[in-house]
């Protein structure tokens, strides 16, 4: 099984559209460099980066050949994990690059991983027709709600991905494990 997965890595990597992700990473690096030169608080830039990178990783779950590949002896969840790993590793590297460029209070990959896990959980449990779009929109929605909701209990809960990322990651991972056969 693992051999089949390893053999699938290169064709899967070729099937992923890397150009949008690379352009997005370029925009984020440019924004972080600007924030560094302006000397302003870069927390919001890093939060945008976390949501944008998480949405990119989750959008990588979209597999146009999913129906054709359903017959191969590799489960859907394994193929998803392969896609997440292929996109998640470069995304984490970009995150660490951005983090090193700023002196922001938000530090570490917790928010990125928490938002990614939330997006994957939604993609697993959402109706199949729009699952990946809804999953990729989840980090964006969480960021926007946290930014614009008035401070209070609801805003605090929505902002847990930023303040308590590891707990959110654990909860979302449990949801992903529960939905692994979906």
């Amino acid at each position: 099984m693992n051999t089949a997965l390893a053999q699938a890595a290169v064709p899967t990597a070729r099937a992923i559209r890397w150009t949008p992700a690379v352009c997005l990473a370029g925009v984020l690096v440019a924004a972080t460099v600007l924030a560094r030169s302006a000397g302003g608080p870069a927390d919001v830039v890093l939060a945008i980066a976390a949501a944008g990178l998480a949405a990119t990783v989750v959008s990588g779950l979209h597999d146009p050949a999913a129906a054709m590949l359903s017959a191969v002896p590799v489960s859907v969840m394994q193929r998803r994990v392969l896609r997440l790993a292929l996109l998640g590793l470069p995304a984490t590297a970009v995150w660490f690059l951005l983090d090193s460029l700023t002196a922001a209070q938000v530090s570490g990959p917790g928010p990125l991983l928490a938002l990614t896990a939330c997006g994957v959980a939604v993609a697993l449990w959402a109706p199949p027709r729009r699952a990946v779009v809804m999953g990729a929109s989840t980090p964006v929605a969480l960021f926007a709600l946290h930014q614009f909701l008035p401070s209070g209990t609801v805003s605090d809960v929505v902002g847990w991905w930023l303040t308590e990322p590891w707990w959110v990651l654990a909860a979302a991972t449990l949801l992903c494990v529960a939905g692994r056969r979906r």
Partner: protein
Amino acid sequence: MSMTTVRPATAASAPATVTRALVVIEARRMLGNPVPWACLALTIWAMWTVTPEPGEWPGASYEGIIPAVAPFLFGISVAASLPFHRARHDVAPAAPVSEARRTLARLLAALPFVVVALAYAVLVAWRERDLGGLWIGMEPGRTTEALHTTAELAQLVALALVAVALGAALGRRMSRLVALVPALFVLWFVVSVYWLFGQAALTPYSMIQVQPLNITVGPSSADPLSFPSDWLLVGNPHTSEGWQRQWVSEALAWWHDVWLLGVAALLLGVAWPRSGRRALLTVGTVLAVAGLVGQHVVIP
């Protein structure tokens, strides 16, 4: 036996009728999308919560109003991108209507969002007057009755045009619909971090331009009363670079609107079919360059 005769459509009216029908269909689809309306609600909420508060950074409330439009721009781009992405399907080239006409219909169908942006700009103007004005500067150069100029409010409408054009360009050129969400999110929310483009050299290239610009006019030891009385000032403890003038310019905002129109035309050129693309790119380049030069000339 009776016979009903139908007057044949004239050659001139048929294309217009087809275009109108396409506009109605596309507009119904776009306006039925909940994303821009949810984003508009967020935008109005964010704008409404901006109020002048004692102890704020001089000009914080004035600066906070305009970037609140970012979620709505994101929503417009998402809604506009969907029909343009649909045009990538191979069924479309076989349609009995030219691609240019279908593109035109989609763009016209997105215009209601620009009208909504205009209404939002009017709402902003009303809200500022309802608050009695916003605060800029600190004593002795301070006002509590600052209102955004017409040119700054017109920026919101120009930005809506850019949002439509950006959605059209990315929707037409990106192969995966799902990749549009992170791309549009990052583009619109990064440009909403206005202080990234706060330096005078970068301001002309910003998308969401936020005034006032802070221009250093003297050291901390300078007597602020020696500056012209109509200057809005900020100094210690808010700055570490001496006295700065908080400069608001309607001329700068108008030239920035020209730059935005140029960017919109360039993006439309990316979305437009081959015939007519060159004209859009030419117009866009001329407007963008004129807008940039104008802004550089105006900034002291």
